[in-house]
């Protein structure tokens, strides 16, 4: 069942980013950085991995100091996140049952 976990999403920071994006219309770079409590460079690295997997798309609006980078989850990303979430819940649910029997 561990094999059902998506290795791209499973990294804690990427999982948190996908969880937030899965319930949002989109999220700006500063918002993700603040909510995940990570540095600019770390967030860039994590989001690049998700973008390379086709799980998120990046949008840049404006120019110069007023420019904003936003991320939006893609349909394949949403599906992958749901599968990962279900796998995680199933593993822990099974583990909980095993522990109580």
């Amino acid at each position: 069942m561990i094999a059902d976990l998506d290795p791209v999403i499973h990294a804690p920071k990427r999982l948190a980013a996908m969880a937030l994006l899965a319930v949002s219309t989109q999220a700006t770079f500063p918002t993700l950085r603040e909510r995940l409590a990570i540095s600019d460079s770390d967030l860039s690295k994590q989001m690049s991995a998700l973008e390379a997997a086709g799980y998120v798309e990046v949008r840049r609006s404006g120019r110069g100091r007023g420019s904003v980078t936003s991320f939006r989850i893609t349909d394949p990303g949403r599906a992958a996140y749901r599968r990962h979430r279900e796998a995680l819940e199933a593993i822990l649910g099974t583990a909980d049952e095993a522990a109580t029997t």
Partner: protein
Amino acid sequence: METSRTDLEQARREMRRAELSPFVDYPRLGAWYPFAWAAWAAALVGVLHVHLDSAPLQLLVVLSPTLTALAFLSWYARRHGALPRDRRLTPRPLARLARLLWAGQLAVLVAAFAADVAVGPALSAPLAALGAGLVVAWYEHRYAAIADRLRREVEA
């Protein structure tokens, strides 16, 4: 993939916290917001009674509350940074509260419409303003309390 049960439990906690974040980590709008809603509701009723000779100007006036609402939503979405969207993952107490908000606004709309037909905008506009303002003030207060509670629960 070397993953212990503790790691998975930690991952699930982080995942649930992140899923909750767009709903409970939001910029508070302050005391002005219910008053703005009240003014908007009064304007919405008022513009329906404005009759101008110029058709484009008439259209602009009638659409102005809608355009104002869209501009506000756009501003708030930027300020929020991650506006919630997936209703299936909306925390139940907040989903219930949202249903009460819409029911309250519908009741205000019906009352304002009845007042408009019976008396006119002199009654319907202030009624819409008072009703919408009170409903939104109550909603904002309840939302903040529920969001605080949910945040504490997930961080415990």
